[in-house]
C-alpha cells in the first residue's frame, strides 16, 4: 500500500520534473522534421560554436587532469603545512556562482581590469577572446579530477606505492604504472565530469566571451542567441546535440556498472 504510493509518487515526480523536459528538447528540435534541424546545425556560426566548444573542452581536460592528478598525489600522500587550505582551495570553484567566476577574469584582464590595458598594448586579448573562455572554463572545471581522485587514493592506501619505491621505482613510474592504473574508474570519472561541465558551462563563459557569433560563441552561448532570436528549432537542435554530448559523458561514467547489469555479472 504505502510502498505502491511511494512508487507512483516517485515516478510521477520523475516524469514531470525530469522526463518531460527531456522529451520536450527533442520534440522542439524535430518540430520541422529532422532535415530542417540538421540544416540549422550546418551554418558557419553553429559549426564555429561546436568547434570552439570542443577546443576549449580538450584544453580544460588536459590541463586540469594533469595538474589535478599531481594535486591529488600531493594532497593524499603527504601531510604538510597548508594542506587543509589547499584542500579548500581546490574545491572553491564549486561554490562560486558561474557568473562570479567569469567576472573574476574580467576584473583581471578586462578593458578596466588590472592587466587588461597592459596586455592590450602588446596586442594580447584575453577578455572577449578564446583565451578568456578557456580561463573561465579552467576555473569552473578545476575541482573535478582532484576531488574524485583524493578520496579513492586515500582509501587505496600507499602500500603498493611503498612496494614500488622499495623496488626502486621513481615518481613518474609509480604514478603512471602503479597508482593511476589501479584506480582507473576514479580517473575516468573525474575526466568525464570535467568534460560534461566544460561542454555545458554557460554563466562564466557568457561573462567573458563578448558573444561574437562565429568567433567567441560556444555552444551554450549559441543556444542563448538563437533562443532569444526566436529561432526555436535552431536553439533546441543545438541544445539536443549539446545535451547528448554532455549526457553521454555522464552515462559513460556508469558504463562499467551497466555492462555488469546487462550481462548479469558481479561487478
Amino acid at each position: 500500500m504505502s510502498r505502491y504510493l511511494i512508487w507512483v509518487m516517485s515516478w510521477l515526480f520523475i516524469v514531470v520534473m525530469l522526463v518531460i523536459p527531456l522529451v520536450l528538447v527533442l520534440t522542439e528540435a524535430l518540430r520541422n522534421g529532422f532535415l530542417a534541424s540538421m540544416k540549422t546545425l550546418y551554418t558557419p556560426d553553429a559549426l564555429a560554436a561546436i568547434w570552439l566548444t570542443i577546443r576549449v573542452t580538450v584544453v580544460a581536460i588536459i590541463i586540469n587532469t594533469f595538474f589535478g592528478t599531481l594535486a591529488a598525489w600531493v594532497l593524499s600522500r603527504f601531510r604538510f603545512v597548508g594542506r587543509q587550505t589547499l584542500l579548500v582551495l581546490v574545491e572553491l570553484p564549486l561554490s562560486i556562482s558561474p557568473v562570479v567566476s567569469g567576472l573574476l577574469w574580467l576584473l583581471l584582464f578586462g578593458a578596466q581590469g588590472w592587466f587588461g590595458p597592459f596586455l592590450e598594448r602588446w596586442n594580447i586579448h584575453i577578455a572577449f577572446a578564446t583565451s578568456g573562455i578557456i580561463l573561465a572554463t579552467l576555473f569552473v572545471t578545476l575541482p573535478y579530477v582532484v576531488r574524485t581522485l583524493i578520496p579513492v587514493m586515500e582509501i587505496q592506501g600507499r602500500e603498493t606505492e611503498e612496494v614500488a619505491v622499495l623496488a626502486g621505482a621513481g615518481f613518474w613510474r609509480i604514478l603512471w604504472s602503479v597508482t593511476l592504473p589501479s584506480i582507473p574508474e576514479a580517473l575516468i570519472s573525474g575526466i568525464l565530469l570535467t568534460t560534461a561541465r566544460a561542454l555545458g558551462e554557460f554563466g562564466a563563459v557568457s561573462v567573458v566571451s563578448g558573444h561574437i557569433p562565429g568567433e567567441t560563441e560556444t555552444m551554450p552561448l549559441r543556444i542563448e542567441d538563437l533562443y532569444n532570436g526566436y529561432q526555436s528549432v535552431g536553439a533546441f537542435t543545438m541544445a539536443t546535440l549539446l545535451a547528448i554530448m554532455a549526457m553521454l559523458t555522464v552515462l559513460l561514467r556508469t558504463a562499467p556498472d551497466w555492462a555488469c547489469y546487462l550481462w548479469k555479472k558481479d561487478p
Partner: protein
Amino acid sequence: MSIEICDLVRHASDSRQVLLDHVSLEVPKGYFVALIGPSGAGKTTLLRAIAGLDPYDSGTISLDGRIVTDIQARAGKMGFVFQHYALFPHMSVAKNIAFGLNILPARSRPSRKEIAARVQELLDLMQIPDLGNAYPARLSGGQKQRVALARALATHPQVLLLDEPFGALDPIVRRSIRGWLRDLHDRLGLTTVLVTHDQEEALDVADRVVIMQEGRIVQNASPQCLDSHPATEFVMEFLGESVSFSGVIHNGQMIPDEKTAFPFAVPDSWENGPIIAMIRPYEINLLPPDRQTDEQTNRQIVKIEAIPRGFRNGYRHYTIQLKERTIPFFVAQDAEIPTQPNGVLVGIGLDVSRARLFRPNI
C-alpha cells in the same frame, strides 16, 4: 647481508609519544629474527624504519657495516612483504613479480626472456607454477602471500622483511607456510626479519626472538634462552600462560605467601627480600599426600584438589582452587599419577621450584 641498528629514536609526528626509544639491534648475516610484542610496541615501526619506509629522528641503520639513509640506497636489496600483501591489483601475478625487474634502467635490465624465466622460477619456488596469468583478486590468502613473497624476492635481495605476513591466513595454512618459509630462508641464504604478534610462531621459526614493549627492546635472545631466562615478568607473561606466586627470599629459600605452595631453595646469589616467582602451568608439581617430609609435617597440611578440565595438546588440564584464586595446572597425558574415581587429583601442596624469579618493581 647483516643489519645493524644503532640507537634509533622516533617520536610520533603530532604528539610527544615515543615510538622508538633508543633501539639498538644487530641482525647477523643469515639469521632469522622475529620481532614480537603486543600491538603498539613499535615492531612494525622498526621494520619500516629498516626498510627506509618510515623516517626516524636520530640513530643509524647500517647494512653490512655501511650506513644507509635514503630509500634509494636500499632499492632492490631488500624484499618487503606487507601484512595485506599490497599486490598491484591491475597487474597479473607474473607482472606483479616482475615489477622490480621491469623498472630497472634499460642497461641493467635483464632481457624479456630472462625476466620471464625468473618469474617462472619464482612461481615454481613458491609452489604456484600455474598462477602467472591470474589476477590478484582471484587468489586465496595463501596464494597472495606467496605472490607477495615472490615479488619481494625477484631482484635477489639478501634481506627479507616480513610484516605480519601470516596475520590474515587461517591457522592450518599458517602453520604449513611457516615451516616452508623457514626452509626458503635457509635455502636462499637470506637474512630475515619477521614481525608478528604470535609468540608461538616466533619461537617456532626464528633463530633469535626480539621482544619489544613500548618502543623498547626488552629482550633479544634465542628461543631456548627466552624460555629459561626471560628478562622480565612481561616477557614471561607474553611468551605463554604463566602463574605467579609472590613471596620473600629468606636465607636462600623462597617462601611463597600462599601456604599451599611449598618453599624451595634458590641460588645463593639471590639476596633476602620480596620476590615474584612465575611458572608455567605444566611445570607445577602437585605433591601427593604420601610424600611428607619432616619439614612439611611441621606445617599445617591443607588438602588441595585439582579438578579435571579435559585434554589439550597432549596435556591433561586441571584447575586448582586456591584460597583466593584459581590456577591452571597441566599434567602430561601419559603421566602415571593416582587419581580419584571422579578424576580429581588430590595433593597436599604445590611444588613450584621450577619457577623463574623476578624482583618486583618498587
